[in-house]
């Protein structure tokens, strides 16, 4: 069955991208430069990502703020207009329906960008939970999304917006309606790579024009089109979680280390009771970062083991993401382990396809950019 295509499908083919199926979408996993060069372009110059497969929705109405507060763990409704807010959507049992970013336009109007593979589930969830309070409009099929990320991204996008500096002056996690290369966009100072940059939402028909304008303007300074491969390696180095790997319906935000996006004091919201209890009782497991210094890569699904325990009880945790470090040494990953095994500096043993490999628990991001 052919997959769904973004409006940039032809542009990817023209660039020679290798396409893969990603949750029912035909998406570029890499271009001829390859994942490693694409990754490095984002760290050293800038990279361009087609993320049009992601879902988008509008929430509108006099009770929009009340509805959004009920739906989200973070204080989305309490944010100022013009702010973008990362949040979880939780089930009443504390499990994560999705992680996403809300854009507050006013107390009565919010925009939200959702994970591609969760869009249908999220929309059903929103309609079920808050559909009576607010008008929900699915904009996924009409909206394209292009991420421009890297140290040169902001100047590049600002120049294409007329070079007046309006865009470079935008704060982190803010957004604005603007025109870039003649294309009407919502530009958000957000990203999923650990670098500065923008995510640009525009109409499908305008996406190819915006994509080529950015790529052409950036090519002389080493800007590359980047596929899902680089997107994954970049987000992992920046320790940003990936839904479906590190988060799912059975993990809680507190276990995932996303307590900073859970505002228990903001008032009632879905999942709050369970999260309050988890916080008081302590967690069963916690998501840790780890680094492997020997020649091995621990990947999604590999077991964290404790060989001092009796046979049959040796599995103490699970790797949720893993890959080679590209801008950092060794190989890196994330795993759920019992809190007793989560001390930074502690050694974990990971069963890498039948071979026990030592990993060190690492606190914080694997890669943090220099902020100027």
């Amino acid at each position: 069955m052919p997959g769904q295509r973004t409006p940039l499908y032809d542009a990817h083919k023209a660039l020679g991208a290798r396409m893969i199926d990603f949750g029912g979408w035909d998406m570029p996993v890499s271009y001829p430069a390859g994942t490693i060069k694409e990754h490095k372009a984002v760290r050293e110059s800038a990279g361009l990502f087609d993320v049009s497969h992601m879902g988008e929705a509008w929430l509108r109405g006099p009770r929009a703020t009340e509805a959004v507060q009920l739906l989200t763990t973070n204080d989305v409704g309490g944010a100022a207009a013009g702010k973008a807010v990362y949040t979880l959507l939780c089930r009443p049992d504390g499990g994560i329906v999705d992680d996403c970013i809300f854009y507050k336009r006013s107390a009565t109007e919010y925009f939200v960008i959702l994970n591609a593979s969760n869009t249908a589930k999220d929309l059903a969830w929103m309609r079920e939970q808050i559909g009576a309070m607010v008008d929900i409009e699915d904009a996924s099929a009409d909206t394209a999304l292009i991420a421009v990320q890297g140290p040169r991204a902001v100047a590049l996008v600002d120049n294409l917006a007329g070079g007046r500096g309006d865009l470079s002056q935008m704060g982190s996690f803010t957004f604005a309606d603007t025109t870039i290369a003649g294309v009407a966009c919502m530009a958000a100072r957000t990203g999923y790579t650990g670098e500065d940059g923008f995510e640009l939402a525009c109409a499908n028909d305008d996406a190819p024009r915006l994509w080529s304008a950015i790529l052409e303007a950036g090519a002389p300074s080493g800007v590359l089109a980047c596929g899902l491969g680089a997107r994954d390696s970049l987000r992992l180095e920046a320790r940003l979680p990936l839904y479906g790997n590190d988060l799912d319906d059975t993990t809680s935000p507190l276990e995932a280390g996303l307590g900073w996006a859970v505002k228990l004091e903001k008032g009632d919201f879905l999942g709050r009771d369970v999260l309050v209890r988890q916080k008081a009782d302590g967690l069963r497991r916690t998501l840790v970062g780890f680094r492997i210094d020997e020649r091995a890569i621990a990947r999604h699904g590999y077991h964290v083991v404790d060989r001092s325990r009796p046979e049959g009880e040796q599995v103490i945790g699970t790797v949720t993401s893993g890959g080679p470090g590209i801008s950092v040494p060794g190989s890196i990953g994330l795993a759920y382990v019992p809190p007793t095994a989560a001390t930074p500096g502690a050694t974990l043993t990971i069963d890498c396809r039948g071979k026990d490999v030592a990993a060190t628990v690492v606190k914080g991001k694997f890669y943090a950019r220099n902020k100027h």
Partner: protein
Amino acid sequence: MSYPTDLRYTNDHEWLRTGATCVVGITQFAVDQLGDITLVDLAREGDLVTKGQRFGTIESVKSVSDLYAPVSGKVIKVNSALKDAPELVNSDCYGAAWMLEIEPSDTGELEELLSPEAYTALTAEH
């Protein structure tokens, strides 16, 4: 895509160059599917490998795959350069990125390998 005509191939995308001994590597088709190679883990000199059985693993940024022996025999040489320079697989999969040299124990197995034409047909289906 076309493949070197002096080699034989497997369904699992390994190539084999026959002579006094057999040299084994992976094809450009496999390399293109894998993307940037970050780690190659091979059998050791002196190991006995069995046709169709795993002789190592290859990891790209995104995935890990097994490498399967095209013939049975004794490993007489291993390309140790791949340990520190796995990217050679991306740049020169039929040359500098050869993986093992095998002394085959049953030369009859060589007959079961795919010709360049058959392998071209196999990969054309993808």
